[in-house]
């Protein structure tokens, strides 16, 4: 196992700059997403900005702080493919929520 550590170590020694960069970027991105609320953007703009900043931050943390960028593809793929199940779950639950609110409005307010 030490071989790995040596490799990791070799990588890490070169990378203090990278860590500090990512750290800085995370602060900047967090500041930006806070600004989304500060300027009270609404509608599609707000949602897309929130999502973009969120995914950028999540990606940076996973890729560099959690070292996923330097891991071999075997591990990366094993970790990322199961997310398709979550993506499917999210999509279907979004559709389900639309239907639920539709039936609620229909029966509670309009009268079925």
């Amino acid at each position: 196992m030490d071989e790995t550590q040596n490799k990791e170590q070799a990588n890490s020694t070169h990378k203090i700059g990278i860590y500090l960069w990512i750290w800085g970027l995370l602060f900047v991105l967090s500041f930006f997403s806070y600004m989304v609320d500060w300027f009270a953007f609404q509608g599609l703009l707000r949602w897309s900005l929130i999502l973009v900043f969120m995914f950028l931050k999540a990606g940076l943390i996973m890729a560099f702080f959690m070292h996923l960028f330097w891991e071999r593809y075997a591990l990366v793929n094993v970790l990322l493919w199961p997310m398709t199940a979550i993506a499917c779950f999210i999509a279907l639950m979004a559709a389900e929520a639309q239907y639920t609110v539709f039936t609620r409005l229909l029966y509670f307010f309009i009268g079925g």
Partner: protein
Amino acid sequence: MSDEYNKQNTPIEAQSSETMSGSSGSTTDIDYVRPAELPEQDLYHGHSFITKWIFCQDAKVIGIQYFLTAVFTGIVGLILSWLMRLQLGFPDLVPFMTAEHYYQFVTMHGMIMVVYFLTALFLGGFGNYLIPLMVGARDMVFPYVNMVSFWMFFIAVCVLMASFFVPGGPTGAGWTLYPPQAILPGSPGSGMGIVLMLISLSLFVIGFTMGGLNYLITILQARTRGMTLMRMPLTIWGIFTATALAMLAFPALLVSCIMMTLDKLLETSFFMPAIVQAGEVLDYGGGSPVLFQHLFWFFGHPEVYIVALPAFGIVSDLISVHARKNIFGYRMMVWAIVGIGALSFFVWAHHMYVSGMNPWFGFFFATTTLIIAVPTALKVYNWIITLFRANIRMNTVMLFCLGFIVTFVNGGITGIFLGNVAVDIPLSDTYFVIAHFHMVMGIAPLMVIMGAVYHWFPLVTGRMLSEKLGKWHFWFTFLGAYSIYFPMHYLGFIGVPRRYFEMYDSPYVTSATGMNEFITVAALIVGASQFIFIYNIVTSLRLGKPAGKNPWKANSLEWLTSEVPPVHGNFGEKLPVVHRWPYDFNVPGAKEDYITQTTPPSEVINAEVEKT
């Protein structure tokens, strides 16, 4: 650690060559296997009774502990099913049977059998015992956590059993625990019963996660030299994929348990809509019961395959060994297992066609459900082709395997009925559904469990089980189980609803009464015949024929340990080195009808073995 590693690594680096085929380049040795990447695992050897047998870190002992605990809960589940059947066949015969008790028994029977019996038995029992042995590891990678896993499971079982003795009794909400009724006073056990059930399930999930991580990582990161993924026995593939499913599906169960506990204890309204109960408006409002059903079945459908996939894997190995023939289409079998596992996360709402979910979902889920039938059917064909013109040993193990194929095909076909929305809607909540899932995930996996016990008992104890008693046991179980569930399809077609305590004067009574009585008698006989099995096990422990090494002439590593039964550390001084898949039976040109996984190619130079 580092020295040892470098010593192994440096000389090899020098000769880096194309050794994939084993024949080209500088290494001409056909027996060449890559050197070890990892140092030997250092094991904690127990030195007192407590560390050897109770808080034991040996996966084999943990496996047996899981097995016995699961069988104990299984027997409780069996007795509950007897009581239910007695009520259905002969109403008012059991004096203490009220509608409340009936529902409690239905619920506990379902939950026990699915989660605490089958899941724990396949993954906790067989998984713990077989994974390190079959992949050639000395133990699980993290034995301490593995030990804690069993004790969490044990506590979960204790909490579950405790719910029988609290005021109001255990929950009677059905094993799916659908809110809002599960936590409202109208259903039995809605006080402490449901709370204990939810706590027990949460503990089970936590405990199982600890074990499951061990199973996965042992298979992925601790195989022996030469053991590639495509040389693993299908048993390991089944258990591996099932565990992977469990790691991703149990979170949904845990979340729904937490949310329902909060609904019950803190009166949050995650799943609870506005409710008027006995003229009184409750504090609940705005929640969504369908959300629970989605979360539950996002867990629940993979759970079906958590039970089925290990059974698929194990039965493939049993068939291959006892038909003395390599499994047909090994790679297809592996990809079918993986494919079924992946697809199982996209089919959950076929359990919810009548729940009032978004009606468009029926289209999506019926499609995915029918797609999942393709890899499943591939597996069935491959089992049958494996048997085709094979040198079959008609022993108890093989009988159970054949029983599995028959019951599984039967249950699978009714599954195709139920997967289609238009057919499902009239059949929902009838005995047809009961017949379907008992065939496919009750009887079929049980057949495999029993076959597996007859197969591996000699390994675990060093003695054979009695074949004569085994055959009696098989025929009682197989024919009996068929006479229970086959008529139920008919009951379902005439519309007899499930989960009804009594039929009273409904129009079904005349046509269903006789059949219900017949089913009940069959159920009693099948249940009782399991005691033949238990008797067989208990007597064979001391009086069985000594098995010796490798009595079935199998190829996989668990039979090649230094001692039988294997001791802590599994293998002797040196770990085995694997040269081939475990299915080299009746290879043309070989001296014997089997070539073990550790036989190097130079010893069977004339045999036409598969390249794996």
